[in-house]
């Protein structure tokens, strides 16, 4: 059993007890515990089930590389699945439950998968997809859905708060072990602005656990002194609980700070995403110990040797009473020694190397530990917990020599540097034969904007395994980084550590060397995804040679730990199966983040009301308070309709249309884009921007214009007014002003930079109200001021003057077909002007109307709408707008493109009106069906609906659409397919449904 010891635990505070629950069971731990160490102290080794076979899973590591010990944390609005117990700080009141089992952790039905493992080999999913479709739907999918998946998705809205921080540093050091501390110190001593981040709560990394002695002092003391020195420096920022998440182009690095994971609900933001620009980055990210591949290496109680050591030294927790250590290197002996020194039993150290001499093995022998050289674990015994191991020869086939009783196995397979951050932005790796690991190749570092390296690496992350070497490389990296950031390197010498001589490790990829298929099927590489040595070998036999393909085929390294434990072992097996060298096979790609970060931290503050800014017109508050049913338009909310008491949206829209056509309606048109084009060459420029001739427009007149892109397609439309000799005012679609303004700027800056033209987007400088309906003139005349009669201000002209004491610019333009004045006033007077119109208009039956009424009225008149009749593939000629395309102009944007054969092809679908025979409303986007099928066996089509509404004016459905040869087929009846599979007949008609001669607007 695992239990709390009385005499060790450098990180726990035994005077501060923390209560927590696991699967409802009450447990206790101490301040300083991780959830994993606290669970182990309560003898809770079994924490979950594996993904595919639902095999029992125990804690295997002590840090971010943990693949098994993931739990559901918290409840309700603070519920979160897949939380790694090894990186979760214990706090009072913590609740968690185990994942991926049914019905219970102890008894899991899905474990049956375990017995059909032969039928769930590598590529199972892909092979299953090849089976008959019915088998997938009725047999495999239900089984997989029941058994797959880790934690549950949260159901409630997250109540916590998240934020982004920004920082700019000379040097960012990632990793607060001794190499990182020394790198930060050396860079700071050189005068650099330094940030040092450490993902755990404590500084110093593994050195204190390994008993390092630095400058003659115990590591803990040196660490405390160094941290104190750094804290005292003004040019240093220190951050614990902050992981270097990703390294990106040009010195961009993200830090993930878990501010309040351990103090939920205290009002602080839970996570903070730091977005940092660094001139130089030092990755001192340490290394991860590798498991060894022997049969049964996934049984709870089998753990990394370094983790066993961490739990004893840091948390005072023993994994078992009797621990067998299995190793291929000297470092494993540190665990054996630490256990014995803590009063625990180590029945045997199983060392795969044939000769075992050296300082650490001999110290172990002196402590009375039995060391067996050239041996291996043939098989681990036990189900939900280790009960013993069978020992065999490493160079044999697994024949048992003896059985050793134990309740824990510590495996030491050598160390793999954490090269993730080095690799994120293109840093290359080199295979180190001696250590059997990949480490950063300093000659092929990630390079920045100036072409020089911007990432350095230090300590064991660089493959510098000894304490003195780690300190020296940290010191060198710190100084080099400061120098590259423009400072003069400090001349202080690096500290020195007591040297512990270690003999060479031996690469051991499977144990024993000649293990047969039965054993290889029980050697786990990826614990979470259930990928075994036999799976990788099968993939190689089936022709998967690329490591990236093998990864996807077997799912090796695709679990939430992203292969931190399994990567190198899997590569070695693949290389061996392919008779290739490991460096030839290479690694899979390292992508950020290093370990998963919360989605909420990425969103930061951008949620709820401040997800994106809301633009408000000067009338917004009035609209909100008068029954508006809003719809989003660009960054605005516009009223779709104004609901009166008891009305449905549909009823309100009908009423608004009728009232506007019969009496008087007001539309807040302030969102309409307004762009000023001014200068001696403005006319020439306008002629290029629009398909129409705009240079000849007379001062005081308005003209409807079209804009196309260089590909000839319609991009925007609106009314242009000539202000004076060298000034035009361009109205754009709502939400289109920024885009069109940018479009104009692009041409002026990059093509016609010698033209004297200035453009300004004045959309928000003006409020604009459309005063529409037969009574429109009456209300303006009642308010009094300028002459708005037809004689003084005819249709398609504009004038400036005062109305009701307001400074106005009045445009006689109509998007409804009614007598209409669009009136602009300074934005500051917009609300007052609106109020004045509403008050004066009362006797004339004034009502505000929304965007749906606007759309219906324009459709009744056959006016096109950008985004309805256009979709980026429509040219003006398709919409019968040839009258708006100048034939006199030599050039305009889109002209050349419209001359292409496909654009002039008479077979292009063209705009017409559509009337259903039964008066119903055609479905939006419905296709017109033609006789026969196409090559894919689908029905042929000859057109589609672009706009469709119920017209309250006509009391029937009306629509516009583009139809093959449409304008030549007036009166013909064609069929449209509905979503329910039935057809509806419609007649091709003129697209102007109402007031065909335009008499109503020109009065």
């Amino acid at each position, binding site marked *: 059993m695992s239990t709390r010891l009385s005499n060790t635990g450098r990180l726990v505070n035994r005077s501060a007890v923390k209560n927590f629950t696991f699967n409802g069971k009450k447990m206790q731990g101490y301040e300083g515990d991780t959830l994993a160490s606290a669970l182990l102290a309560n003898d809770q080794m079994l924490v979950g089930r594996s993904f595919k076979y639902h095999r029992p899973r125990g804690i295997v590591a002590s840090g971010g590389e943990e693949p098994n010990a993931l739990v559901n944390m918290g409840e309700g609005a603070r519920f979160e699945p897949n939380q790694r117990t090894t990186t979760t700080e214990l706090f009072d009141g913590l609740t968690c439950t185990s994942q991926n089992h049914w019905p219970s952790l102890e008894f899991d039905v899905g474990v049956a998968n375990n017995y059909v493992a032969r039928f769930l080999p590598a590529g199972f999913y892909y092979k299953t997809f090849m089976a008959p479709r019915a088998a997938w739907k009725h047999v495999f999918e239900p089984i997989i859905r029941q058994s797959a998946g880790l934690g549950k998705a949260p159901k409630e809205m997250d109540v916590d708060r998240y934020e982004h921080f920004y920082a700019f540093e000379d040097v960012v050091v990632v990793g607060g072990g001794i190499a990182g501390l020394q790198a930060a110190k050396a860079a700071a001593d050189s005068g650099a602005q330094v940030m040092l981040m450490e993902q755990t709560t404590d500084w110093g990394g593994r050195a204190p656990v390994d008993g390092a002695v630095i400058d003659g002092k115990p590591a803990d003391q040196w660490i405390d002194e160094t941290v104190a020195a750094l804290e005292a420096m003004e040019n240093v920022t220190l951050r614990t609980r902050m992981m270097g998440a990703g390294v990106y*182009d040009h010195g961009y690095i993200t830090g993930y700070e878990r501010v309040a994971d351990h103090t939920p609900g205290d009002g602080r933001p839970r996570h903070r995403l730091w977005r940092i620009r660094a001139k130089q980055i030092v990755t001192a990210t340490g290394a991860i110990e590798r498991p060894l591949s022997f049969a049964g290496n996934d049984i709870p109680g089998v753990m990394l040797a370094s983790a066993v050591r961490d739990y004893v030294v840091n948390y005072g927790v023993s994994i078992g009473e009797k621990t067998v250590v299995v190793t291929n290197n000297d470092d494993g002996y540190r665990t054996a020694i630490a256990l014995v020194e803590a009063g625990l039993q180590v029945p045997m150290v199983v060392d795969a190397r044939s000769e075992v001499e050296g300082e650490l093995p001999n110290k172990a022998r002196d402590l009375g530990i039995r060391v067996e050289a050239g041996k291996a674990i043939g098989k681990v015994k036990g189900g939900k917990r280790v009960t013993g191991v069978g020992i065999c020869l490493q160079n044999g086939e697994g024949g048992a020599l003896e059985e050793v009783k134990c309740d824990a196995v510590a495996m030491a397979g050598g160390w793999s540097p954490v090269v993730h951050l080095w690799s994120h932005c293109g840093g290359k790796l080199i295979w180190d034969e001696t250590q059997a690991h990949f480490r950063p190749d300093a000659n092929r570092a990630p390079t*920045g*904007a*100036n072409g020089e390296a911007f990432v350095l690496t230090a300590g064991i992350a660089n493959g510098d395994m000894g304490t003195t070497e780690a300190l020296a490389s940290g010191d060198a990296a710190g100084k080099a980084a400061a120098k590259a950031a423009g400072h003069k390197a400090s001349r202080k010498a690096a500290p020195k550590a007591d040297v512990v001589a270690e003999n060479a490790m031996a690469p051991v990829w499977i144990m024993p060397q000649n293990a047969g298929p039965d054993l290889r099927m029980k050697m786990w590489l990826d614990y979470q995804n259930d990928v075994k040595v036999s799976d990788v070998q099968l993939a190689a036999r089936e022709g998967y040679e690329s490591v990236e393909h093998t990864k996807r085929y077997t799912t090796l390294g695709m679990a939430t730990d992203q292969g931190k434990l399994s990567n190198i072992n899997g590569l070695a097996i693949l290389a061996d199966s392919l008779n290739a060298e490991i460096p030839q096979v290479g690694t899979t790609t390292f992508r950020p983040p290093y370990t998963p970060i919360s989605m909420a931290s990425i969103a930061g503050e951008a949620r709820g009301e401040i997800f994106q800014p809301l633009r408000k017109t000067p009338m917004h508050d009035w609209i909100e308070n008068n029954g508006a049913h809003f719809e989003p338009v660009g960054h605005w909310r516009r009223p779709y309709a104004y609901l009166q008491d008891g009305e449905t949206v549909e009823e309100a829209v009908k009423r608004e249309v009728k009232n506007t056509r019969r009496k008087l309606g007001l539309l807040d048109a302030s969102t309409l884009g307004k762009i000023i084009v001014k200068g001696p060459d403005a006319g020439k420029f306008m002629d290029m921007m629009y398909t129409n001739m705009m240079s000849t427009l007379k001062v005081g007149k308005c003209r409807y214009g079209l804009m196309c892109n260089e*590909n000839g397609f319609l991009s925007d439309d609106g009314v242009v007014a000539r202000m004076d000799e060298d000034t035009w005012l361009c109205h754009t679609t709502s939400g289109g002003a920024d885009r069109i303004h940018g479009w104009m700027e692009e041409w002026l*800056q*990059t*093509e016609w930079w010698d033209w004297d033209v200035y453009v300004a987007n004045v959309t928000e400088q003006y409020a604009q109200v459309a005063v529409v309906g037969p009574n429109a003139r009456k209300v303006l005349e009642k308010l009094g001021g300028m002459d708005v009669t037809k004689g003084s201000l005819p249709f398609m002209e504009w004038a400036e003057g005062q109305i009701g004491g307001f400074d106005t610019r009045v445009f006689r333009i109509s998007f409804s077909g009614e007598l209409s004045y669009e009136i602009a006033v300074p934005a500051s007077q917009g609300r007052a002007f609106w109020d004045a119109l509403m008050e004066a208009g009362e006797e004339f039956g004034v009502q505000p109307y929304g965007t749906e009424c606007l759309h219906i009225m324009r459709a009744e008149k056959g006016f096109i709408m950008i985004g309805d009749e256009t979709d980026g593939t429509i040219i003006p000629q398709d919409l019968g707008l040839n009258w708006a395309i100048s034939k006199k102009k030599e050039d305009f944007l889109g002209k050349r493109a419209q001359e292409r054969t496909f654009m002039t092809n008479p077979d292009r679908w063209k705009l017409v009106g559509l009337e259903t025979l039964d008066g119903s409303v055609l479905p939006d986007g419905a296709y017109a069906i033609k006789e026969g099928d196409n090559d894919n066996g689908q029905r042929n089509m000859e057109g589609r609906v672009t706009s469709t509404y119920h017209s309250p004016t006509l009391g029937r459905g009306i629509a516009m659409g583009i139809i093959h040869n449409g304008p030549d087929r007036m009166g013909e009846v064609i069929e449209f397919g509905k979503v329910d599979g039935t057809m509806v007949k419609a007649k091709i008609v003129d697209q102007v449904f109402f007031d065909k001669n335009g008499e109503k607007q020109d009065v």
Partner: protein
Amino acid sequence: MLILECPYCGVAAEETELAAGGEAHLTRFGPGSSDDDFETYMFMRENPKGVNFERWRHANGCGKWFHAARCTMTLEVFGTYSAQTYEPPADLIKAIKKKRPDWPGYGAHK
């Protein structure tokens, strides 16, 4: 995330401040041009592995368009310069050649 120095306002701008505008120094072909010329102008874009000249706009800054010379492999920035020129400045071309002796030179592919 790139940083490019805007040659107009002098700001070392983050990529989030910038809008990319594709290949630099295109020649516009309008009415009267051949189909081939128009196709080249409209659609045919260089996609070199290495030195590339491109257009950027300091969209969330001073609003100006400018040109940048950049390595598409390493993202090394050789320089930024005015949008109002038909080809890269001679001193910039010289500097790139010095750094990348194997580079065939501006326009060599055309």
